[in-house]
């Protein structure tokens, strides 16, 4: 379970980027965070795994022994330990391009392997086989040996998901995982992420409300650093207008596009 309490971050000039963000997420939930650009979605997500330290507030995650850790306050070594069990998928190309897909999946367990062994020997064959199984789940085992840079965007994201699966995490974070993908690939990725929420809470930042409406169990909307909505993923047009301002028409168009693909 993940508990976020009162995250705040203020710029030197006084503007609040995050203003009291609080929510709880547990296993079984697939949360989509929505908001217009600059509203604070990505900042919030980055606080959840320690890439960003808020000015105040806490992010409490529990390990396999149910001990609580406040990500905002723990030291580097503990952070590394906690991150072993947090899976991440970022937007765009964040896998190591010159390594094979298999190697990128195995990187997921770097936090769990002894440093010296990982640096001087590398990965074991047993780990490779497990990684291959993870790739199989995302239907990428054929391309396990390909250099990641040669894969398409959709294939890369599938490898990223495989890496997360390989970690057996207790929390999965996704920062705009489908923003760089065409609608068909986006659908595939969402379909692969959704089942993972059965085992762990999944939190993703999205720019596509029609996607969150279809696949998420819950939506949190952020505007100007504050949560303005937390609940049912199917948002009314009025809600959408509140969140985004004037992007209603765009959303309606995308729905038509998706309907056309969903044959």
């Amino acid at each position, binding site marked *: 379970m993940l508990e976020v309490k009162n995250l705040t971050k203020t710029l030197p000039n006084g503007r609040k980027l995050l203003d009291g963000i609080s929510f709880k997420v547990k296993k079984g939930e697939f949360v989509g965070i929505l908001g217009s650009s600059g509203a604070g979605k990505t900042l919030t997500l980055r606080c959840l795994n320690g890439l960003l330290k808020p000015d105040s507030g806490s992010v409490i995650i529990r390990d396999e022994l149910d001990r609580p850790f406040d990500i905002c306050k723990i030291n580097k070594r503990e952070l590394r330990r906690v991150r072993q069990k947090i899976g991440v998928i970022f937007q765009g190309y964040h896998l190591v391009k010159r390594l*094979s897909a*298999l190697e990128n999946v*195995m990187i997921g367990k770097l936090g769990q392997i002894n440093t010296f062994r990982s640096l001087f*020997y*590398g*990965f*074991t*064959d047993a*780990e*490779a086989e497990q990684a291959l199984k993870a790739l199989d789940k995302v239907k990428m085992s*054929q*391309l*396990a*040996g*390909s*250099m990641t840079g*040669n*894969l*398409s965007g959709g*294939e890369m994201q599938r490898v990223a998901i495989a890496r997360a699966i390989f970690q057996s995490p207790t929390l999965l974070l996704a920062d705009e995982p489908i923003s760089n993908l065409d609608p068909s690939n986006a659908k595939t990725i969402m379909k692969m992420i959704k089942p993972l929420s059965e085992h762990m809470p999944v939190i993703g930042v999205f720019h596509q409300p029609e996607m969150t409406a279809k696949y998420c169990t819950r939506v949190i909307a952020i505007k100007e650093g504050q949560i303005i909505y937390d609940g049912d993923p199917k948002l009314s047009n009025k809600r959408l207008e509140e969140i985004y301002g004037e992007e209603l028409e765009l959303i309606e168009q995308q729905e038509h596009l998706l309907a056309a693909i969903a044959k």
Partner: protein
Amino acid sequence: MSMAKLTLPSKKYRQKMTVFSAVVVAVALACIYTNFNPLGIFLEFHYVRDLLGEMTPPNYHVLSDNSSTVMAILQTLSMAFLGTLYGGVIAVIIAFLAASNTMPFRAIRLTARFALSFLRVIPILVVILIFVIAVGPSTFAGMLTLVIVTVGNFGKLFTEMIENVDNPPAEAIFSVGASRMQVIRYSIIPQILPTLIANLLFAFDVNIRAAIGLGIFGGGGIGFQLQLAKSVLHYKDVTAIVTLIIIMVIVVEKISDYLRRRILGEGKLR
């Protein structure tokens, strides 16, 4: 998407180990052959400490004792400057003779290209030693060496620059009945001039470092002073001269960078 072969980590480790071992063996053999002990620096560090003791504090009176040090710096700077200037001009001329779009006569073109290739591979040591004999050990010999070296380093580059010039302007000028020389003047030169000057500034930067080395072989300048101070074991002078050299090189570098950036705009290229 073609399927790439999947190699197991253990096999990859073996492959990497093989390459690594081969390199280690090659290096070990090389060290044995040349009697080089990589740890030697640390094991024999007392030599360095002794030397440092003799070298400090640096004796900057070399600047004021007699005018030879200051003169030497000016000599090195002049050597590099003239070597770059004259060398650059000659390089450009030969480049025009070697470029396929400005020299229609194959014989001349091939001779020019051969000359450029030859000057590129001739060792700088040979050049300075020859000139020291031909015109005597002097700054003049150093300057002549730098002329040759500059042509060698940049001749081919300039040729390629000339050949890669955009053609349409040349054709447009030809079509109004202009001669070849006019095409060169109005079409090619304007296109390559900025890069040309930028390269010459870069050449100046390179040549100033070379000029220091040439001084040791009879080319005069601060390199000669350095060698002189070392040979009479005046190590405090040596330190002072080394720091002066560093300052000189850095100053030239900064000036060269600044001017190049002004000519080429941001993102200094060759």
